[in-house]
């Protein structure tokens, strides 16, 4: 007996494992494992490749301009001078405007759907709002060009000029395509995300909190605002960051209504440009390697920006759902 065990321990473990794998392959278990593992690794390889390709194919401009690419104000393909500031500015301004308009409306709807509406109505309306999220960007662009911009021109902008016209934000001539139009289109596009995620977070708040507050004599609104909202706060911020990440990377609808002019203007009524829009418009025109590398570097900037915002959003949503589960 003792001799037997000794022999077993002396035997090289590699051969053991090789035999195990061989037997596993015959029965199919190891093969199946290898196949699914390869697919999982393929995702990591693809994502790594995505980052590397963006990095490699922007090397020319990264070396030529360094970090000054980010704050250069000139974008001149003819003289090979590339600075991203006008696009970063346009991206940030339109996204900020979109959030400013979409957050109150989205949050209001989410509160209504989670706190007030009967469950069945809430589910039906949520389905409708989520359908809104399924509308492709290019169709928002189509409606933006032919419906929203004329509407803004005829009704909204004259009213804004009459009331807030003294602000530098609303100076100058409105030409239809503008930072303002892009912000409004973006707002319409991100409302569904805020509604759908915030509603989910609100529904996860335990009912005890509502019942307790109501029992103490709080009105429905006070219950919602002072008791439910604070417990869902992080998750709601998460939904807003998620919507922000969408807005930053949104391309088609913005490209169609922003005017595509690489300038930095204080007035929202002036045309502008965003990172995504310039990539969409100029990629097929880019003839020199240097020009292509400048555009890919813009893609790299956009990638970094959205990954950062998404990370924050995920962290916030994750911590709320953990707290709610506790």
């Amino acid at each position, binding site marked *: 007996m003792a001799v037997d065990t000794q022999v077993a321990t002396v035997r090289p473990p590699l051969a053991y494992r090789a035999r195990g794998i061989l037997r596993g392959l015959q029965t*199919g*278990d190891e*093969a*199946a*494992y290898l196949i*699914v593992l390869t*697919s*999982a690794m393929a995702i*990591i390889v693809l*994502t790594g490749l*995505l980052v590397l*390709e*963006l990095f*490699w*194919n922007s090397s020319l401009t990264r070396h030529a301009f360094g970090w000054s690419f980010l704050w250069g104000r000139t974008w001149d393909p003819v003289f090979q001078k590339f600075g991203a500031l006008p696009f970063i500015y346009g991206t940030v301004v339109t996204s900020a405007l979109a959030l400013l308009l979409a957050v*109150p*409306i*989205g949050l*209001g*709807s989410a509160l*209504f759907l989670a706190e*007030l*509406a009967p469950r069945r109505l809430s589910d039906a*309306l949520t389905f409708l709002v989520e*359908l*809104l999220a*399924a*509308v*492709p*960007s*290019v*169709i928002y*662009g*189509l*409606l933006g060009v032919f419906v929203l911009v004329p509407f803004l021109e005829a009704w909204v902008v004259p009213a804004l000029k009459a009331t807030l016209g003294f602000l530098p934000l609303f100076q100058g001539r409105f030409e239809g395509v503008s930072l303002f139009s892009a912000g409004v289109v973006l707002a*319409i596009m991100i*409302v*569904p995300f805020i509604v759908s995620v915030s509603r989910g977070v609100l529904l996860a708040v335990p009912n005890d909190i509502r019942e307790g507050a109501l029992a103490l004599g709080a*009105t*429905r*609104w*006070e219950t919602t*605002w002072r008791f439910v909202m604070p417990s869902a706060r992080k998750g709601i911020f998460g939904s807003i960051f998620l919507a922000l990440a969408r807005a930053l*990377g*949104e*391309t*088609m609808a913005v490209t*169609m209504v922003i005017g595509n002019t690489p300038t930095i203007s204080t007035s929202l009524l002036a045309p502008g440009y965003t990172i995504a829009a310039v*990539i*969409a418009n100029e*990629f*097929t025109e880019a003839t020199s390697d240097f020009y292509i590398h400048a*555009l*890919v570097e813009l*893609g790299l900037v956009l*990638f970094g920006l*959205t*990954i950062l915002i*998404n990370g924050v959003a*995920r962290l916030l949503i994750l911590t709320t759902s953990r707290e709610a589960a506790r």
Partner: protein
Amino acid sequence: MSGVSFRRRAVNAVMLGLMGLCTLLAVGVLLFILGFLFVKGASSLNWAFLTKLPKPVGESGGGMANAILGSFKVLALATAIGFPIGFLAGVYLSEYGHGPFPAVVRYVTDLLNGVPSIVMGVFAYTLVVLPMKHFSAIAGGLALGVMMIPIAVRSTEEFLRGVPRDLREAAMALGSRKWRSIASVVVPTAAQGILTAVMLDLARVAGETAPLLFTSFNNRFWSPGWNQPTATLPVMIFTYAISPYDDWHRQAWAAGFLLLASIFAINIAARFLVSRGFSHSH
């Protein structure tokens, strides 16, 4: 005392009213979009639009038959690339998914889900178009395919995890191998859910335009095979909408209507499937 109470009641009524108003606004926008697109698009749709090639620039008439077929081709390719990888990785995460490596896979999948579609286009461009030196349906399919992966992974994992443990144990107790129990018991049980998720995934990328602009590009003629610039509906909508021709605007509306109707049809069918699936299992 009663004054305070009145103020509180008034605030309550106003705020609740505002909340309702916000919902009305959000839903109203949807109904407006649907209504407008339906009226404008359905009236622009005709037989020539569905069956004819585009006319030369500036001439009216013609259609988008090549773009309709092109969209199908690119989407088929995207599904062929995105679904197998996403599905198998989902099986990995659900059935073998303990420990640090699966956690990394989940994290990277989420990361990939957050990549803007235009950046995915740039990726496919550098990966396929640059080495091949021309635009092709393959490049477009790759861009959309990679975009499909994250949702396919997460929904496969979620639906497989929903399969009760008892079923797996029963299969094992009958002497089947692990892969056998996954392939013949676990996956079929979750098949309906996974199918729904793939439909929604497909609907999500079906309207994507930005990643196709410089990958599958555009074409005013048929594009035989997979290796040529290929017209797709979303890109056609973009090109026609920003053109100066009235007839092209009409066709953009028709294409928008066709695209949105297909996407909504898939969404509603998927929703129907899910609700039927649940009533079966409970």
